């Protein structure tokens, strides 16, 4: 029996799809996968500083873009820290503290909360008090006496160097914010191949970075401290609360931003000769529309199906002009799409643009995207010895050209899977406009056979995808990777199965999927890494 994440024995199987959607019934399971220590990515680093210090640090602008592994910049394996970061961190921390203390403007409203006593009067006791409170928030765990002594020593070192008490406490805060306990999310190893349950603070930290892309708030830390978090129902209750918080918009911004590629719109460059109006403003409008389609599902207000079928979206004046439609939003600010031939994500101008070449559509890109993102069945890159034998049709439609190019034996195996998915969306041009003819003037043919079923157009494609047996597990898998910051391993199979089942049983609602993941052993336990690196 093939399990959904087993490695296919050969290329053919991989192409046909290693996953057949079968759920493993009973556990041949090993331990959950090993969690590598994660570094805060630049978005998390900024959010954390901002929430901690009550400032708008814009810290991400000071850091290079984070590597994306397994589709997300939350994946720990990709988040390598290189030596250059030491200086970047020092500088952005100086900047953040300058904002906090108000060097060039009003100080943060949180100064009085954090610097909570009078250093001039209370001296050492005051430093200890500040250290205890701030360490808990910054390192996301209660400090030990040694930790506090370390802060006091740094403060004293500042005083020795003729710093004022405020300068010295700032120096100590800088040290705290440059420490590995802040920059990374260390979870002490239980030892090779051992498993341990995470403590409440570690669970709180995982929850906060998953749902908020930021640090735990006071209530979450309090639940960790009192033990309430790890009592039955505790994690689910906090997750519920956190999903209702505005900070859960991070799921739209960062999870959907990458899973659904909303972020990529920003770097899309269609041919300006043909599409001179495709500027940053239009891109922002397109991203807003994509978010408006993703949001109901991700904020728990609608089932997954709406992502592909929703018949309304946020279309501002700029985008209405692009679509050549009237700007007539309803009371909720959304525009109705009924009667337009558009529905859901796969007909938004943003999505259709990022999956096109600069001046023509690409069935390959569109098909590949659907396979990778919705069915988790993307074909491997072209094999090393691929022959690029290309014939060109003297006169044929864009689709016929595409079909001709891929007919050679080497290419057909993969492309027979990818391309027909894209053909069904041929009625939408490279910047997302509906069209009756392609660039070469040929009539649009958007009929295709998908695994034997005739499908044409966006609505039928959505129906076909929503009834596909792999789609639920694929949503689960992407969410798992984002949540844990790693790809699932064999020992996580059962968790993914259970979460997929919970997702289906709850009518494909996102909070149910989140609850299943955050209460699973993959989320609540730590497995020790092998001591010898391969």
């Amino acid at each position, binding site marked *: 029996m093939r399990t959904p994440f087993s490695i296919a024995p050969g290329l053919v199987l991989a192409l046909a799809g290693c996953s057949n959607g079968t759920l493993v019934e009973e556990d041949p399971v090993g331990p959950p996968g090993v969690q590598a220590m994660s570094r805060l990515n630049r978005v998390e680093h900024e959010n954390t500083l901002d929430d901690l210090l009550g400032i708008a640090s814009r810290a991400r602008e000071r850091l290079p873009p984070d590597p994306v592994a397994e589709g997300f910049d939350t994946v720990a394996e*990709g988040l*390598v820290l290189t030596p250059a970061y030491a200086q970047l961190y020092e500088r952005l921390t100086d900047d953040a503290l300058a904002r906090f203390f108000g060097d060039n403007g009003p100080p943060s409203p949180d100064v009085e909360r954090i610097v909570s006593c009078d250093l001039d009067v209370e001296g050492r006791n005051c430093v200890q008090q500040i250290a205890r409170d701030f360490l808990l928030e910054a390192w996301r765990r209660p400090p030990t006496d040694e930790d506090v002594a*370390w802060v006091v020593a740094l403060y004293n070192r500042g005083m020795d*160097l003729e710093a004022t008490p405020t300068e010295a406490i700032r120096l100590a805060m800088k040290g705290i914010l440059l420490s590995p306990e802040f920059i990374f999310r*260390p979870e002490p190893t239980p030892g090779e191949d051992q498993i341990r349950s995470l403590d409440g603070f570690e669970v709180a930290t995982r929850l906060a970075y998953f749902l908020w892309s930021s640090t735990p708030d006071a209530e979450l830390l309090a639940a960790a401290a009192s033990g309430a978090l790890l009592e039955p129902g505790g994690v689910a209750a906090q997750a519920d609360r956190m999903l209702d918080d505005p900070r859960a918009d991070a799921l739209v911004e960062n999870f959907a931003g990458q899973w659904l590629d909303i972020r990529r719109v920003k770097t899309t460059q269609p041919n300006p000769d043909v599409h001179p109006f495709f500027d940053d403003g239009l891109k922002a409008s397109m991203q807003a529309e994509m978010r408006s389609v993703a949001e109901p599902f991700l904020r728990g207000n609608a089932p997954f199906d709406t992502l592909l079928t929703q018949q309304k979206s946020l279309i501002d004046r700029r985008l209405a002009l692009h679509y050549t439609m009237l700007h007539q939003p309803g009371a909720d600010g959304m525009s109705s799409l009924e009667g337009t031939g558009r529905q859901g994500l796969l007909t938004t101008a943003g999505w259709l643009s990022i999956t096109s070449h600069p001046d023509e559509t690409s069935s390959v890109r569109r098909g590949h995207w659907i396979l990778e993102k919705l069915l988790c069945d993307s074909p491997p890159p072209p094999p090393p010895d691929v022959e690029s034998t290309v014939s060109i049709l003297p006169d044929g439609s864009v689709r016929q050209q595409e079909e001709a190019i891929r007919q050679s034996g080497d290419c057909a195996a993969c492309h027979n899977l990818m391309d027909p998915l894209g053909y069904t969306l041929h009625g939408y041009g490279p910047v997302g406009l509906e069209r009756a003819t392609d660039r070469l003037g040929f009539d649009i043919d958007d009929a295709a056979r998908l695994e034997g079923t005739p499908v044409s157009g966006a609505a039928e494609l959505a129906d076909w995808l929503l009834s596909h047996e792999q789609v639920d597990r694929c949503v689960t898998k992407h969410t798992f990777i984002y949540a844990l910051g790693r790809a699932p391993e064999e020992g996580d199979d059962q968790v993914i199965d259970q979460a997929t089942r919970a997702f289906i049983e709850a009518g494909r609602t996102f909070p149910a999927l989140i609850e299943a993941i955050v209460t699973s052993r993959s989320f609540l336990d730590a497995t020790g890494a092998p001591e010898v690196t391969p």
Partner: protein
Amino acid sequence: MTWTRRQALRTAASTLWLPFLPSILPREARAATGEAPRRLIVWFLPHGMQHVHVAPEGGALETTTVTEPIATLPGRISVVTNLNNSSGGGSHGRSTASLLTDIPGPYGVAEAGISVDQLAAGEYALDVPFPSIQLGTEAPGLFGSSGEGILVSRISWANATTPLAPITSPQAAFDQLFEGQDNSLSESEAARRRALRHSVLDAVKDRISSLEPKLSTPDRHRLDQYTTGIRELERRIDGLGELQCEPPIRPGLNPNYVETVELMAELQYIAMSCDLTRVATFMYGPSASDITLPDLSINQGSHQLSHAWSYDDGANGDFQAMNQWHVAQFVAFCERLAEHEDQDGTDMLANTAVVLGSEFSDASAHTSDQLCMLVAGGEAGGFRPGRHVNGGGQPHANLLRSLLTHMNVNWSGFGQNGTGVLGL
């Protein structure tokens, strides 16, 4: 002579004085010796150097449409052809990651080996504030959100599992290079501020030491890079005030692609001429970059052109024009080096090996077995540029070894496939 001094520095540093070692010798001292440092700069042009677009027909140096700009710097740039990267080929990721490492990682996994620039950087790490710099652009790429994303966007590797991300914002690169240069402070106040910075960094190193025993081996390795970075920063803090070059004007935010390329070239020139670093890599974009050049009316993406050129005449013309533009930027950069007098009285280019390379020799077929590169300068290390050097199918690792020879760095153990040293 250089060798002895460097060895002495390294020996001293590794025992006693590491954090407090002055990062460079005073300029007057070096001027007196009449020595100039060796430098290495590699530029990566994603899938831009097609064998059929670059290789001269015969044995002599002849320029093509793509290489035409090198004529403005006669006798200083060689066209090197027919080098075989058997670690590459096939995927964008492996071909890119193996270009400077000669190690083929597993498919789609961010693994390779130490790259040639990092080997050279390690040798001179104690002589300059920055052992090396990695720069790039925000060029969009096809693999932005897949596992190949890391492999295609890094050519410098500190070790088998640490690819070095290029800085893609010119402003951030500027801040990195010229941070902390404040000549308005009194000497004692500057010293006090340095001491304060040191106290924080010392304290952070203590945190790292106390955390390490609690972590698994792979996690400890992750922290090692941070420790290395802090040590490098400490040395730079000590070296502040010794640097005698005027920082250029700080670049603004969000320049476009063309502006970014120009600014990054300028920053490399300044970093080298101020001896802030001796090793740099620059990526025009990731492999499978999809940039367009609207200024030249090239509106199809680079990656699309890299396939379409082989069967579409229009695409072929656009692709060559696009690559010619990139070669012209490279040549203009080399000219800047050639116009700068070095400390030994020659020009800076003579002491610098400057390479332009691509991961594929035929991007439409993803092959890496007839690689073409441009190699400029390096006369001080025995290079004789201005020729057509036909590698005749030798491993491209042989060229990488030549670069290390130029840098006076021992290449034994580097890469996988080297058979000798390519005469450049």
